[in-house]
């Protein structure tokens, strides 16, 4: 390393990194579009009680399976129609965004923090600790994720909380593997040896010295896991193992709508569209993040 060092305050460094990141991220139009949609989703979820025209649980008995407003028989008060018990589709979809974002945040937080700790320990200590931990991760990865999540929910009992725990357990090995690989690459570097010589303990070495330099792949994986979590939670809801009715979770809404597929297209179409749009937006963001954060992966 022959770079001349210029001393910058840590705030200035952070600003520069952010600016550089945004410069690369902006190049990818899809990623920017994904970010815009994602921000809209967050706004929708946070301000759901203000935006939604009706209470998502209110049943309008005089308005069962009313079609969307532009179709014959549609009513202006129910823009996207109503479901089989007369609940406003639009309001339920808006409140559903809360579920999806909440699921994504919880699953990724659990999987990420668990995976980081496990991966750091495995990568840092190596030897038999590493061998044992990684074999356990291999076992979890040997199961198709949805199947393992289903069985875990069967053990824990159906419900949103258990579905989130199950999905987080299933995703956690991906983070553990990534962290371990990054740690193994970093721990022989000079700055780690320097910190060690300066008397840093194992905890400090792991979390303060090495971890910050392993974050890029983890952030990318976190984004991808966020979208998979939304998908898997919806799938569990659809199979009756996730959020339980009358929750306005999109997958659960689809499960309830199944019997009307040939009679009322709107009760089936809109919840799925909401899932697709959110997952797509997050995946677009993930692609952009990967390109911006990880120059090694930036091949295409």
């Amino acid at each position, binding site marked *: 390393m022959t770079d001349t060092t210029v001393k910058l305050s840590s705030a200035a460094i952070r600003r520069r990194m952010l600016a550089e990141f945004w410069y690369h991220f902006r190049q990818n139009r899809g990623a920017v579009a994904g970010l815009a949609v994602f921000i809209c989703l967050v706004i929708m979820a946070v301000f759901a009680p203000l935006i939604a025209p009706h209470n998502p649980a209110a049943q309008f008995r005089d308005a069962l399976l009313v079609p969307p407003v532009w179709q014959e028989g549609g009513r202006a008060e129910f823009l996207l129609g109503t479901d089989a018990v007369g609940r406003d589709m639009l309001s339920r979809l808006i409140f559903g965004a809360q579920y999806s974002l909440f699921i994504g945040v919880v699953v990724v937080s659990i999987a990420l923090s668990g995976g980081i700790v496990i991966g750091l320990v495995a990568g840092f200590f190596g030897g038999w600790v590493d061998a044992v931990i990684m074999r356990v991760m291999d076992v979890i990865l040997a199961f198709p994720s949805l199947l393992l999540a289903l069985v875990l929910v069967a053990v824990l009992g159906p419900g949103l909380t258990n579905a989130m725990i199950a999905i987080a357990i299933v995703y956690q090995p991906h983070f553990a593997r990534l962290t371990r690989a990054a740690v193994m690459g970093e721990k022989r570097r000079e700055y780690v040896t320097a910190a060690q010589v300066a008397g840093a303990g194992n905890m400090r070495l792991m979390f303060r010295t090495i971890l910050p330099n392993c974050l890029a792949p983890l952030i990318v994986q976190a984004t991808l896991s966020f979208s998979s979590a939304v998908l898997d939670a919806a*799938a569990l809801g659809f199979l009756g193992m996730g959020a339980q009715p009358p929750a306005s979770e999109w997958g659960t809404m689809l499960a309830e709508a199944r019997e009307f597929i040939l009679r009322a297209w709107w009760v089936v179409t809109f919840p799925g569209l909401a899932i697709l749009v959110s997952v797509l937006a997050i995946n677009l963001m993930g692609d952009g993040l990967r390109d911006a954060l990880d120059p090694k992966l930036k091949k295409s």
Partner: protein
Amino acid sequence: MIRFFLTKLLYLVPTFLGITIIAFGFVRVLPGDPVLLMAGERGLSPERHAELAAQLGFDRPLWQQYLDFLGRLLHGDLGNSLVTKKPVLTEFLALFPATLELAFVAIVIATVIGVPVGVLAAIKRGSWFDQISMTVALVGFSMPIFWWGLLLIIFFSGTLGWTPVSGRISLMYFFPPVTGFMLIDSLLSGQKGAFASAVSHLILPSIVLATIPLAVIARQTRSAMLEVMGEDYVRTAKAKGLPFRRVVMVHALRNAMIPVITTIGLQVGVLMAGAILTETIFSWPGIGKWMIDSISRRDYPVVQSGLLLIAGLVMIVNLLVDLTYGLINPRIRRR
């Protein structure tokens, strides 16, 4: 090569043991009395309870129970279903061809479309074809396939009336299973229209199941091709004046296929997870629907052994993929 094979095989032993521990532990951590769960009887007298506990081995220490479990497993005894009373293995083998047929057709669709699309997108990088196909691929990758299946049913079965909604073949046709694969059996039966009926039943589920693998394969092929197209040997081939077609098909594609084959192999797990959803939507009588039904019926012996069989299957396929990888890429073997 043999050494490579044996190392890979050796690595599987702890993983397989881990899978058996999870399947074994699953019943023990379920809330409720494992004897009642596994025996599926209600209102047991204490004597009957003790008898069943002894019969099922729950009265012995845990490690002994586990060894018994492993022993039975090695003898091919996976227990009996609580609902049908039939051996789990028999049920699995009867239903497996349906899932295999569906998954096989899906992966063929995904590969036959995905690889050419990925290659074209790579050689026409930046063109409208590249942009549109990669956008569609990302949409496919983000697709909630259970919803996608419902949409296809609404359109093709509901509006157009082209395809049936569920099952593997019309009830009009009946023939004993020979291979278990409806496409083959319907041909063998010689009944008029049976094959067409089997195809029309298979088409929507296989499209649904193929969606995510197709998107993954197209994206992976494109990026592998882009990488290879920048290599020196491709430049040399171009400089030699070889026709572009030959450069792409022989020099680039053959090398780009190495990661793509791995990707295709790794779709097995995706296919199994997808089969659970696809089979549920289309009432396809395969192991995905079997697992879901067993979970909701609390048929725990089936869930336990089904979990084991499916994970074992995925593990073996992944091993085969690893070996193929070693065969087509000699650099891996030497490491």
